[in-house]
């Protein structure tokens, strides 16, 4: 039983792998899970930055945009292979995060929130402004599907496996990060920056690194998004998307990696039910979020762990 408690995620992994075989999902169903997977990558990255390092970002969609547009432009206009374009996007996002990280992350709380929001807006207005390159507000079209070693991932199940492999890698590496000396430094920064500094943690450097990692994840998510959609427009990368990511974090349970992943999954599947409510959808979404925040401060993942502990009795630490 103790093993079940420790290795429950293996069951999850198996479920991800087996779902297409047993569930025989339509392209729509797998499409939903592909979008959910992309948002999980974004949310997990943001969790490293917000949940672990304690740095608020209301502009994370900026890096999502950078990844998507780098991939989109390089493949649709310059004939790059998708994998190469994704790599360029990663390098570009990491560089951008490196350059902006120090000055921006020196700010705290609301000021940081404001600066990241501004960063998001700047990226979006530049995308709209340089329409020759980006397609402007009308969007960028003709982005080819993803290919690896000449093998096209146009088939929805192939892409499902591809995206979810990335999801698993991102979650696994995030857990490796937070359960390592590196993650401990991040947590120390989150707890008490001055005290962390007194123990040799170069806070600016570690914050910037966490920011870069989150940016890299977001960029990868952006590339995956662009190749799946085949078309991207600035509307999907604005502040509203960034705010949605925040909501995913808190809905799922911030600072737990799995929580934000769960939050992303939930929020991306929720419209499947609430679309029927039409005009009431917005109100209902707001109320669901309020209820979770007030009554379940640890989010959906808190509910999940409580459930797990109920089923598997405590075995001691």
């Amino acid at each position, binding site marked *: 039983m103790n093993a079940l408690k420790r290795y429950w995620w293996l069951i999850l992994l198996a479920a991800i792998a087996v779902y297409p075989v047993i569930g025989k999902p339509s392209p729509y169903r797998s499409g939903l899970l592909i979008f959910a997977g992309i948002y999980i990558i974004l949310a997990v990255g943001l969790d490293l930055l917000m949940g672990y390092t304690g740095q608020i970002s209301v502009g994370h969609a900026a890096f999502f945009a950078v990844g998507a547009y780098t991939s989109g432009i390089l493949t649709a206009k310059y004939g790059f292979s998708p994998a190469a374009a994704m790599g360029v996007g990663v390098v570009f996002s990491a560089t951008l995060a490196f350059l902006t990280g120090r000055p921006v992350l020196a700010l705290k709380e609301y000021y940081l929130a404001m600066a990241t929001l501004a960063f998001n807006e700047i990226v979006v207005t530049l995308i709209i402004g340089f329409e020759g390159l980006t397609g*402007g*507000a009308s*969007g960028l*079209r003709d982005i080819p599907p993803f290919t690896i070693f000449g093998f096209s991932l146009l088939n929805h199940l192939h892409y499902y496996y591809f995206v979810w492999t990335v999801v698993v890698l991102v979650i696994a590496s995030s857990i490796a990060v937070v359960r390592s000396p590196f993650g401990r430094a991040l947590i120390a920064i989150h707890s008490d920056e001055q005290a962390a500094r007194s123990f040799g943690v170069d806070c600016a450097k570690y914050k910037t690194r966490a920011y870069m990692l989150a940016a890299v994840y977001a960029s990868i998510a952006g590339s995956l*998004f662009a190749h799946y959609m085949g*078309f991207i*427009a600035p509307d*999907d990368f604005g502040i509203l998307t960034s705010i949605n990511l925040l909501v995913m974090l808190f809905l799922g349970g911030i600072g737990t990696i799995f929580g934000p992943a769960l939050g992303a999954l939930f929020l991306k599947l929720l419209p499947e039910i609430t679309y029927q409510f039409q005009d009431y959808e917005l109100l209902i979404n707001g109320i669901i979020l309020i209820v979770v925040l007030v009554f379940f401060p640890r989010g959906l993942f808190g*509910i999940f762990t409580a459930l797990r502990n109920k089923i598997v009795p405590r075995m001691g630490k």
Partner: protein
Amino acid sequence: MKRFVFSVFVLMVFVALVAAGPAWSKEPIKIGGIFSLTGYLSWLGEYKKKAAELKVEMINQAGGVNGQQLVLISYDDNSSPEQASKVAQRLISKDQVVAMAGTASVPLSGAVASMANRYKIPTIINSGYAVDTSKDPYLFNTSHKTDFAVITAYKVFQKKGIKKLALLMPIGPLGEIGGTAARKYAAEYGVTIVGEEKFDVKAADVTAQLAKIRNMNPQAIFAFVTGEPAALIGRNMDQLSFKVPLLVSHGNANPGFLKLVSNVRTQMLVPSGKVMKPEALPDSDPTKKVIVEFNKKHIAKYKEPANYFSAELADAIDLIAEGLRTSGTTDPVKLRDAIENIKGFVGMQGIYTFTPKDHHGTRPDDMILLTVKAGKWEVPK
């Protein structure tokens, strides 16, 4: 503990609802509808949805198509390309529609186009999106080309001697498209573009741009924009006592716009389909009959006349039905070919003749230029 049990219950219900989904019988022919019912384009989504539903009803009452009834399955795209892409995929793969209709903006159309082409589902959009048949073989558009709107206005300008035109374009897709079209035909109709300014559609005030434009001494202003920003420009022009006509986009040919400009004195010029002014059409115009008939039913059902958006959707459904009729199958690829072969079909937006190179089908003559006088649409003299 109670809270815990409750949350488990909620979670299970959630999963069950997602898993179940609605079940449809196989009988009727399914057509997908994609409408912006929430988000910033939600004000026009409703018009389109209503018209599409009415048209399907009318076709079914007349016995359906090839003996089968039509059914419209429609979803909200939240005015977001991502959601539009998602619902398009849902319609294609889950609901297995034979064709789709709808969308409200260029980015939304782009997102849907990508899915339509990938899964080879004929789709009739209606927005400023210019269909390039070499890239979008499965896409058709019942919205008049922006070029036609510009040409329609320029013809009137030529008659009235308006030669100097200033552009006030929104930052965004419409501005990009409108500006391009305005420049393309300027020389042909003897119009000079004296300058261009841009503005943010969310702005509360555009007097700064208008002040600059006034310095250019134009005889008219062209703002290819829809809804509130269009009315806002008119109102700001009133405030500056800047008395030249304001040409706006054909997306304003709807009753909501009349309400918005009820207090505006600036002369608004709105290119439109003939649907907005059927009484001004000669009886010889074949579209008149179609418009009058649909309008009658629209008023009966919704207590308001059809508008430009309604006409776009009514025609979209009609064209799909026509394609189904002529091809006799529900195979989407054959349906596409059938729609592409439609010639001389009389709709509300005009007479459609598609070719492998032209998926808009309508002509400049299918548009008229309207103005607002005393809360009513008028044809300017």
